[in-house]
């Protein structure tokens, strides 16, 4: 019995490790689809619509990468992952990249052997409470029952915040956002805590969003970004520069509306020319076609368009750009040059 248990464990580990070989780019091209890990459903970031088609801000990143690599933004297999399963899925090679509100931390980058390719949303952990409780600050939450997604950095931040402020709380660990929503709305917990963007997205789906307030305290830095496995630098470069292309496109004024016209022939802005492949050979260096960035931007628009279309102020989620504005507008988005 003991032997078979060990054998099972070793088989699992052996297969898992065996799948994580190098050459993801070749694998994706050979397969013809990109396996992209997303959340199990967070409106605005990644959620299937009424027709079962995945849509959202993180989904947009997956589609841009698929368009850059395969030339087809629909060639994506979306794999829903929970806070707990996401890293195993990526490490085992089940998914090629993970675009799932994942915080870039030292230990995940270094110890868990992943490669964060950049930041697509600068976030911070917040608290949501029902307005009727009359709570105005997170420091008033002494003794509260807090719903929290297990396996996330928010779990650690929460413990640190309450310990630092010398107040107590009762954690209620849950697996998915949907369960958290159910427990929170039923009053089984007083507070729901996760990234502020996630809170806004969750609140947007409530029947009466006005009855819930997001507290002013942001207790952590949560730079969220897509990540790939450590050790496959070619693939990491592809995902990193696809994200950078989307951000640069906004800065350079390239949108899904004018991209057809701009990529027809070289214009008078050399950086745009290099980005869109009408000048230089950046695509070739990545091992992609010359119009890789054009395809990526055409898939769902530039970063600004993705933001406004999925989570911006005119959507139910209603997030302002804030830190996620271009550096020219006082935000943190700043990409290295395409040169």
């Amino acid at each position, binding site marked *: *019995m*003991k*032997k078979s*248990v*060990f*054998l099972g*464990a*070793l*088989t*699992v*580990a*052996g297969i*898992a*490790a*065996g799948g*994580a070989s190098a050459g993801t780019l070749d694998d994706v091209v050979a397969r013809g689809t990109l396996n992209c890990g997303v959340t199990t459903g967070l409106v605005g970031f990644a959620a299937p619509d009424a027709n079962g088609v995945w849509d959202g801000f993180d989904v947009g990143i997956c589609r841009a990468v698929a368009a850059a690599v395969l030339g087809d933004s629909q060639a994506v297999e979306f794999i829903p992952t929970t*806070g*707990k399963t996401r*890293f*195993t899925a990526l*490490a085992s090679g089940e998914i090629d990249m993970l675009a799932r509100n994942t915080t870039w931390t030292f*230990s*995940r980058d270094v*110890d*868990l*052997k992943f490669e964060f390719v950049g930041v697509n949303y600068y976030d911070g952990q917040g608290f949501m409470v029902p307005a009727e*409780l009359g709570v105005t600050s997170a420091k008033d*939450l*002494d*003794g*509260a*029952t807090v719903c929290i997604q*297990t*396996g996330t950095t928010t*779990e*650690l931040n*929460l*413990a*640190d915040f*309450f*310990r630092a402020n010398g107040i107590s*709380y*009762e*954690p*209620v*660990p*849950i*697996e998915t956002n949907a369960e958290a929503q*159910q*427990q929170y709305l*039923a*009053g*089984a*917990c*007083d507070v729901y805590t996760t990234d502020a963007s996630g809170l806004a997205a969750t609140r947007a789906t409530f029947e009466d969003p006005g009855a819930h307030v997001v507290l002013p305290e942001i207790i952590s830095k949560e730079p969220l970004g897509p990540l790939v496995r*450590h*050790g496959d630098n070619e693939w990491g470069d592809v995902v990193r520069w696809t994200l950078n292309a989307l951000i640069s496109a906004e800065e350079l004024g390239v949108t899904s509306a004018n991209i057809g016209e701009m990529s027809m022939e070289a214009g008078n802005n050399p950086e745009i020319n290099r980005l869109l492949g009408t000048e230089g050979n950046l695509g070739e260096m990545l091992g992609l076609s010359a119009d890789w960035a054009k395809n990526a931007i055409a898939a769902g628009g530039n970063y600004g368009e993705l933001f406004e279309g999925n989570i911006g102020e005119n959507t139910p989620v209603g997030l302002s750009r804030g830190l996620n504005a271009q550096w020219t507008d006082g935000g943190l988005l700043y990409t290295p040059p395409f040169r």
Partner: protein
Amino acid sequence: MTTLTEPPKETFRLSMLIYDTRYRSLTIQVVALIGFLVLIGWLINNTMTNLETLGKEPNFRFLWEPAGYDINQRLLDYTSQSPHIRAAVIGVLNTLVIAVMGCITATIIGVIVGVLRLSKNWIVSRLMAVYVETFRNVPVLLWIVFTMAILIETLPAPRAFRGDNATASMLLDNSVAITNRGVYIPEPLFSRGLGDIPVFWGTFEISLDLMAVIAVLIAGFYASKRIRMRADSIQEATGERPTVWYQRIAAVVVPLGVLLYALGFYLGYPELKGFNFTGGTYLRNSLIALWLALSLYTAAFIAEIVRAGILAVSHGQTEAAAALGIRPNRIMRLVVLPQAMRVIIPPLISNYLNLTKNSSLAIAVGYMDITGTLMGITLNQTGRELETVLLGMLIYLTISLSISTVMNWYNNRLKLVER
């Protein structure tokens, strides 16, 4: 002249390993064993090589780093600064709590349902059949989630207890509060308690009050047993049994009462303070949901085992007992069940094991058992899949084998002694 014909001396040839039936089975076994060992070696080697390529050589040092997360239900002291190993211990204790509570409840319900299903009362036996079939044939995970959903959606939130026109109120003279976060019941407290003593170099503490109560209870039951034995011997000698029931009760109750009075025993009632009830013992709804679902699910299986055990006892036994003038419920208790136990115990062991292993579904309702702490949050925060899962398997294996050992010992005691 006699001719001595010696049988031709047979020399061993290599082909005999296959063609000679004396050696063939041995050959096959040796080849199979070598193949098996090569396979294991390859798997271990493959795992090690791949983990090394990933830069993740197995090591268990992470167990002594601070866990960083909080656990709601903890039987020992634990803070977010405690190491991962302590979080794992908290998880193991939570697993054991649910396993013990579940096994006891499932056995009680199972025996009652199993006996009632054999009832001559048509409605009762049909009702029990419906219970057994519905619970046996729906996956236990669904029962767990379903029970949790019922608890959360139907019971009042703590804030419903607040204010002048509260929509919910506490039960039993304001001592029990049933909310959708769990049940709060009064807790025993001591105003002149003896305190705790640290054991195992201060890794955890034992309550002296609890120890004292247990010691006095054991002594009380022992005294009560002695009184009964004395009554038995008097009865055997004189044929007349002295009335001792009040002495036996007093032997248990009086010392306990004296001890509780000396320690300043009182009940701490739950009280609505701030966001939640404080004080009292808090049974979280994750515990209750898991406990109820696992007990009811496993009880359905145990009921069938009990029914089979009872039916396995020859009807002649019942008739013989009836002929001696024993009343029906005593026939069941004294004649049928003791014999049925021999059939019941072995499958009962495997159901206890099933319940314990099924408790690993706890994360579905956010109950922090060993799967939730060590193989859940710790795995996720440290990324040590192989180590945590191996450790988790080892723990479940140990728990399961311990249960088997205890139950097998019990089974051996009950077994028919054959000569």
